[in-house]
């Protein structure tokens, strides 16, 4: 597998020790500490190449029309919000309809966070290693790390709310399973799930299962639990299609390079700047 070849090269190599021997030592260490054994390279799936999210950037397309554009079982028609968060969401929808709901990423300053990182245009890379899994997005750019080296999730008091949180996972055959906690949610009004104004709270916990359902399709199933924001688990399915063209490159995405659409800090309106930098609208 292409990924295996590249990734083996990235393993730290000590004099006289082969990567295979090092991996064996890592496995032994994990087992000795009572942790889940890491899955060796040979048993990991090949998720190499560039991928694109399928569909538009509405996080749960089932919420877009009320009828749903996804037929995968388990996709909900609407987030099962608590009354308080339903009120917040409806407020965001009203602002959106008035073109006054700025997307926090429009000003090119903050990560998109989780799970919105699964909801972006442009290319993705899914980097599989025994000890860690990376989601690398061109858009943003954004990076997410999922530790698969046998460690446990930190205690809640040892997290403080970040955009992407902390994620720990393991492999069940060809399926990567991980949990994410420590998300900041809507605490600072700068982390949303999509431009309709979907938000979660800082109590959110996301369980993610990722697997290839065929050679060119990755499926991601999310179960989102959030005692503040949701009355019951919210199930969302995302899919990614592999770019079939050979030897495609990932590129820079300097969001601030030529951002002609900043949000007005007062009105929240998305501005359009002319080539001279002055607002046109």
């Amino acid at each position, binding site marked *: 597998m292409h990924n295996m070849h590249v990734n083996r090269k990235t393993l730290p190599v000590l004099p006289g020790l082969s990567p295979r021997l090092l991996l064996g030592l890592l496995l032994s260490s994990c087992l000795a500490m009572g942790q889940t054994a890491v899955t060796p390279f040979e048993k990991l799936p090949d998720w190499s190449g560039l991928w*694109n999210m399928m569909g*538009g*950037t*509405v996080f749960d397309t089932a919420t*877009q*029309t009320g009828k749903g554009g996804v037929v995968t079982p388990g996709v909900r028609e609407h987030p099962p919000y608590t009354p308080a968060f339903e009120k917040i969401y409806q407020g965001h929808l009203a602002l*959106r*309809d008035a*073109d006054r*709901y*700025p*997307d926090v*990423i*429009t000003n*090119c300053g903050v990560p998109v966070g989780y799970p919105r990182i699964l909801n*972006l*245009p*442009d*290319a993705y890379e899914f980097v599989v290693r025994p000890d860690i899994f990376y989601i690398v997005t*061109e*858009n943003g750019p954004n990076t997410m790390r999922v530790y698969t080296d046998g460690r446990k999730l930190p205690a809640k008091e040892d997290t403080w709310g970040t955009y992407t949180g902390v994620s720990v996972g393991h492999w069940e055959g060809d399926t990567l399973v991980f949990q994410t906690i420590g998300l900041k949610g809507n605490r600072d009004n700068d982390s949303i799930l*999509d*431009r*309709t104004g979907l938000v979660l709270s800082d109590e959110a916990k996301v369980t993610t299962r990722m697997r290839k359902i065929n050679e060119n399709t990755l499926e991601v199933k999310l179960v989102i639990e959030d005692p503040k924001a949701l009355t019951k688990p919210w199930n969302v399915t995302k899919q990614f299609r592999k*770019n079939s*063209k050979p030897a*495609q*490159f*990932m*590129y*820079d*995405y*300097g*969001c601030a*390079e*030529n*951002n*002609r*659409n900043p*949000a007005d800090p007062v009105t929240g309106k*998305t501005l*359009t700047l*002319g*080539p001279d930098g002055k607002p*046109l*609208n």
Partner: protein
Amino acid sequence: MKATNIAAGAALIAAMTIFMVPPILAHHSSAGFSQDVKEISGTVKEFQFRNPHSWIQVNVADASGKVTEWSVEWGSPNQLGREGIRPSTFSPGMNVTIKMRPMMNGTPVGGFVGAKMPDGKTIGKWDTGDGKKPAYE
């Protein structure tokens, strides 16, 4: 440009009309754009092939000769580059006709739908795009 390069470029552009990957305006809300498609013909002033979105600056003259500079927004160069678009696709001085979704407030800004090039070739959703904007990409 050699004939083979021209043919390859044409093939890439043709492929783009089929495989254009949505969404293209995901950096910000598309709420300000109209559902309707407007067509403008003019001269390319500049093609800003930079992130987060590409912009085609086009000078358009009306019947009285008054020139208005239109700003037509397109996808990220990363995305467009993988589909065969290059900074040279719209070169200064080129005469083009562009289909776009104009902003509803009347400013000379639009979201790219498709274009007809000087040689008659088309790119984007010139033939198939109905201009309907996706819901809040």
